[in-house]
């Protein structure tokens, strides 16, 4: 019994200690909710790295309104409930000024009502589902994003495939477990069919699967000219390898989830000839981008993926808005974020529209010799 009592007391003590907040008026606290553990830890960690880089830079430049920026990150294990609890804790106990996160739309959706209710602006780096910034038909007043929404990317690629490449027959392989992937696939399909193309096959896998040959074999039988695989690089690289192993020679297409150095490392050339939509390209000589890539490499090693870039952008948009805002209250910062125009982000020039979505152009990248090459810019 003593053990139980000890356990309870310790727990209470820790909770109490955790609730003590250090209030220092010379710092600005921003919160980040991300999946640092769990199946999507790799994405959450990337975003976290991007944010940390942005914070380091802003502090090097003297902070905001003379105050140092401090970021506090809570892990949500990739669970929506956890994301909600973490967001509540950041807002109500840690009193953050701005909330960043989450990578996945389902988690951002769990955080959004909390941000709204407490009037703390939330910027999600990569949640692409249109509903994240919507409450029914209304736009959520405090929720913003710096990424594309699903309809945009899906449509862009459908148009590119149909109009630029003049493709007739496309197969889809989507990750049913990911709202992002399903969203892109749905909008791609809609647009592609609208433009007179045919979706010859629509297959599914689940993120983390090791084997995709069953779906690919069936797809192969339908003789598509392109396989659209909107998914994350972790799976796509294996999909590509297995497609080639089955003798499928047609290109693969995808979205910004592909963007990572790991993609090429795992795929080993299997993706040559394929293309995907993205926010930016590492090769863009723009000093902003080059500087980001260089500094990221120095700090964390490895090339930043799109998750890192967008995390960086989300933080930058927030900092710029806080700098512009009259004061650091929630409504003031919110108003400042909402009026972001032509903000030069790593992932493109961001303008926040009335739906709180980022309006920015996309690039289509092609893969040759296991490297991404810029092909085209697509404007919204």
């Amino acid at each position, binding site marked *: 019994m003593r053990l139980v009592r000890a356990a309870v007391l310790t727990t209470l003590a820790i909770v109490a200690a955790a609730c003590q907040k250090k209030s220092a008026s010379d710092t600005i606290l921003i919160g980040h909710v991300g999946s*640092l*553990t*769990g*199946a999507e*830890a*790799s994405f*959450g*960690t*990337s975003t976290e790295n991007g944010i940390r880089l942005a914070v380091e830079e802003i502090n090097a430049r003297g902070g905001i309104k003379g105050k140092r920026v401090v970021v506090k990150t809570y892990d949500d294990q990739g669970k929506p409930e956890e994301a909600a609890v973490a967001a509540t804790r950041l807002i109500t106990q840690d009193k953050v000024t701005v909330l960043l996160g989450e990578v996945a739309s389902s988690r951002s959706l769990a955080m959004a009502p909390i941000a709204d209710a407490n009037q703390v602006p939330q910027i999600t780096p990569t949640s692409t589902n249109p509903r994240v910034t919507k409450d029914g038909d209304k736009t959520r007043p405090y929720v913003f994003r710096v990424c594309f929404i699903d309809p945009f990317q899906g449509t862009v690629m459908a148009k590119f495939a149909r109009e630029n490449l003049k493709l007739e027959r496309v197969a889809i392989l989507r990750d*049913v477990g990911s709202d992002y992937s399903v969203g892109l696939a749905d909008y791609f399909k809609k647009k592609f069919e609208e433009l007179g193309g045919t979706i010859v096959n629509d*297959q*599914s*896998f*689940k993120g*983390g*699967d*090791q*084997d995709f*040959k*069953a*779906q690919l*074999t*069936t797809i*192969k*039988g339908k003789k598509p000219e392109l396989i659209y695989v909107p998914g994350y690089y*972790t799976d796509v*690289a*294996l999909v590509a*390898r297995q497609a080639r*192993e*089955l*003798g499928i020679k047609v290109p693969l297409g995808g979205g910004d989830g592909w963007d990572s150095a*790991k993609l090429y*490392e*795992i795929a*080993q050339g299997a993706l040559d000839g394929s293309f995907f939509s993205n926010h930016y390209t590492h090769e863009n000589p723009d000093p902003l981008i080059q500087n980001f890539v260089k500094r990221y490499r120095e700090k964390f090693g490895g090339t930043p993926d799109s998750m890192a870039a967008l995390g960086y952008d989300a933080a930058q948009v927030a900092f710029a808005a806080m700098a512009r805002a009259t004061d650091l209250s929630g409504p003031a910062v919110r108003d400042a974020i909402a009026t972001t125009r032509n903000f030069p982000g790593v992932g493109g020039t961001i303008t926040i529209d009335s739906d709180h979505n980022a309006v920015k152009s996309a690039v289509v990248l092609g893969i040759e010799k296991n490297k991404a090459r810029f092909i085209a810019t697509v404007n919204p």
Partner: protein
Amino acid sequence: MTEFLQHLVNGLSVGTIYALVALGYTMVYGVLKLINFAHGDVYMVGAFAGYYLSELVGVRPPWADPPPGAGEVFVKATIVTMGAMIICGLLGYVIERFAYRPLRHRARLTALITAIGVSFLLEFGFQLSPLVHTPIEFPPGPSPRVFPALLERVGYEWAGVSLSNYDIIGLLVALGLMLGLQFIVYRTRFGTAMRAVSFDSEVAGLMGIPVNRIISWTFILGSALAAAAAVISAVSRPRIEPLFGLMAGLKAFVAAVLGGIGSVPGAMVGGLVLGLAEEYVAGYTDSSYRDAIAFTVLILVLLIRPAGLFGRFTVEKV
């Protein structure tokens, strides 16, 4: 027809991996009647052990210049595989010794919870960002790592059906291991002792069987098998990350149950059946229900044969 055969090849290829993991699972289960929840994670550790060992011995990919010779490939592949098996064997020993043995005489669910604890410890421990950077980065962190190509993939195509040396080697190794295990379990003194311990460890002690040693060796063997499976799987599907053992472990559990837990050929057949079932379901019906239908198949099989395909359903003596 081509498609049907291709699915057959694919299904066997996936099923082989399931079977390989399930073999280790079933060994451990057979002797302790413990759902070794951490088995999938030992499998994961096996893949990472192989990965790190490849870095240490400097495995060069087949496309390197100059390409590695056959001898070099063989030596290095052997070192990597054997090394991974030894590391996992040790890990299995440690897990058994410190997390399971103290609870052996407790309710079985108790050991299940420590198994879950070990599983979480390995998964989340490996997900931590690297603390050690040279000579190897450890822990590997959450983002996937690429398993080096120990052996060049050679693809064969026959009437439009493609398969590779990876698939063939995997299947042969799995079959070999199955026969080897079957031999060990039914033909050796160690195997008889194992079965005795499995039935009643107390009485086994009365026969002069060193029960702890037998259980430890079973764990070591099962864990080493997991490592072998991991290396074989990782060579052909070279993406490894700290959570990838979770699903593999679950599927292996399903395969072992399907075949009849504790039965060596059962694990093999269970793995292959599961692989084929998934393959044909995904290939010919709706691939979005792949997992659901795999589980449905399992449920149906168990409803018809409550102890799995090869399990002996013992009517309780009243």
